[in-house]
């Protein structure tokens, strides 16, 4: 039977993700990792993986568990594995970070944490990707947004496999010239599969649906959208082939990577044109804050992909600045903007779903304070801009201050999410009609509620 229910563990994924975002930015403010350490130093790897796995991947995983059913009009199959997957991911990330700290020599931790973390993360992502793969397979032929998610899942598995191979090599657990070559030349490919293939392709897919939903625009599969999917999928495929080239020592991986970046740029342009088309076809006159903040993220995505296509910007200070723009301008900006809407909507449904139509209930908009959040998003994007410029210019003092600004706005936005969860912005007269359910902050209400 078609339909979508609340995903039980999505809020737990979101809560963990937000904590990791705070931790990652906190470390940068404290002067840990790049630019205070080398770009490939273990300290930098700690920060990078806190953000890429802890924040972005958990956020995306939680969102997909909730929204894949909306994309395919079918419930998730195997939703009971969502919690074990989260525990494996958190445990794996903890071990991985412990392993990096051990590599840095700051603490005397066993280096074996690194491969243990790699295996646990592979298991966690594998379990999560398995849930969604089975769910998607049940819904063929897939609508276009869901096909982006499928591409993203393939890239996720690729990124996790390469990552766990890295952990085996870096810890000295295995010695193989094959993997040595991968460590030497495969880091950019690992990052491209993770940040581009996994996080961006899925974000694009889900946003096609969310944008037309929130803007009240007709939903049509345009040929440009299909071309964007082909571009993104081919780019992922090229990166995978490049990985094989690197492993087998065949020359040409760099060329394939450059071609993948060019395809990505084309896909981003098509996606941008589609979003513009959706925006023009909207029935809702005034776009809400989550849409405006997402558009800002999209603009920064296009800029960073454009810059990555300039060969001279693919090294040193500049590549760090551009990747930072991609991670904090595009992925994190979009993530925070959508969280702002999603948390309010899911909370509204959980709290007032049972009494809808039986008693007056607040609107979803009554759960948030848009004027307040608008200031926070401006502060956030402003701080990201300064952070990127100071990374490019190599001024670490400015960088720290800018990240502190980012951290502050993030903390305030998280406070807004908590206020939405607690229904504390809702006018008192509407807050608690008889029969409503008061949601917990980030745990499901009972072990038997929601998906089975």
């Amino acid at each position, binding site marked *: 039977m*078609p339909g979508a229910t609340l995903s039980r563990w999505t809020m737990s994924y979101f809560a963990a993700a937000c904590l990791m975002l705070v931790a990652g930015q906190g470390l940068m403010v404290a002067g840990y990792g790049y630019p205070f350490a080398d770009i490939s130093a273990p300290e930098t790897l700690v920060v990078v993986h806190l953000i890429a796995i802890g924040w972005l991947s958990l956020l995306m995983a939680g969102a997909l568990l909730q929204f894949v059913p909306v994309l395919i009009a079918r419930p998730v199959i195997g939703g009971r594995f969502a919690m074990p997957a989260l525990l494996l991911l958190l445990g794996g990330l903890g071990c991985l970070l412990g392993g990096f700290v051990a590599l840095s020599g700051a603490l005397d931790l066993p280096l074996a944490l690194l491969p243990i973390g790699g295996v646990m993360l592979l298991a966690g992502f594998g379990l999560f990707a398995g849930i969604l793969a089975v769910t998607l397979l049940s819904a063929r032929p897939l609508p276009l947004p869901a096909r982006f998610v499928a591409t993203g899942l393939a890239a996720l598995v690729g990124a996790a496999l390469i990552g766990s191979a890295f952990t085996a090599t870096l810890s000295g657990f295995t010695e193989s010239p094959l993997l040595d070559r991968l460590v030497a030349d495969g880091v950019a490919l690992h990052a491209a599969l993770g940040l581009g293939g996994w996080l961006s392709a899925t974000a694009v897919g889900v946003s096609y649906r969310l944008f037309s939903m929130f803007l009240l625009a007709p939903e049509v599969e345009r040929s440009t959208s299909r071309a964007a999917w082909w571009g993104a999928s081919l780019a992922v495929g090229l990166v995978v082939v490049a990985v094989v080239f690197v492993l087998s020592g065949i020359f040409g991986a760099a060329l394939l990577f450059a071609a993948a970046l060019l395809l990505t740029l084309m896909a981003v342009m098509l996606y941008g044109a589609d979003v513009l088309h959706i925006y023009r076809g909207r029935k*809702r006159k005034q776009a809400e804050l989550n849409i405006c903040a997402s558009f800002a993220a999209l603009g920064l995505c296009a800029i960073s992909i454009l810059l990555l296509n300039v060969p001279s910007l693919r090294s040193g200070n500049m590549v760090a600045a551009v990747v930072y723009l991609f991670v904090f301008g595009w992925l994190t900006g979009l993530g925070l903007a959508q969280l702002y809407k999603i948390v309010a909507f899911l909370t509204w449904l959980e709290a007032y779903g049972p009494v809808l139509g039986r008693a007056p*209930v607040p609107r*979803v908009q009554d759960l948030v304070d848009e004027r307040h959040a608008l200031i926070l998003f401006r502060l956030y994007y402003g701080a990201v801009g300064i952070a990127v410029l100071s990374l490019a210019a190599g001024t670490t003092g400015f960088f720290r201050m800018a990240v502190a600004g980012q951290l502050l706005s993030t903390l305030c936005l998280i406070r807004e999410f908590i206020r939405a969860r607690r229904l504390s912005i809702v006018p008192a007269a509407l807050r608690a009609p008889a029969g409503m359910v008061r949601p917990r902050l980030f745990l499901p209400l009972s072990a038997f509620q929601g998906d089975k």
Partner: protein
Amino acid sequence: MSEITPKVLDVRPILRSGGEPFQAIMQAVQDLQPGQALTLLATFRPQPLFRVMEGRGFDHEAREIDGGDWEVLFTPKKDAAPVETSVDADRPETWPDPSEHLDLTDLDPPEPMVRILAAAEALEPGEVLFAVLAREPLFLFPELTKRGHQWAGNFDETGSAYRILVRIGEA
């Protein structure tokens, strides 16, 4: 399987008074239930309309009736979106005619869901409500089932509107 009786629209009075019936016809098409056909009565063979209805996914069958008037039966093409139903919704074509019609195409989600649930509360068990929405109300389905209501729905022939019938359960 018995089918839902076609909706009948007689535009002869409009035509005879010199009016333009197109708006009324399109409104009737939008109000069709999932799978329902439309019988149109006109004073001439409405050739231009066949094209329009073809585009919206309808086959037509026209015949001349008494007095030089025409009767056209527009039936949804077979490849239209399949009708989805709740597990317990047996034979929606036997349900009574809807006692409530809602056009919710211009509302932000989740407002259509709120309106449908509110309208359902006001109806007696066994009564049926019909609603048109801009998209498939995925979060509404489980809530209807939880409240003991049955439903059947599908996208219209253009894929731009979702029609749903809800039969109120014995709650």
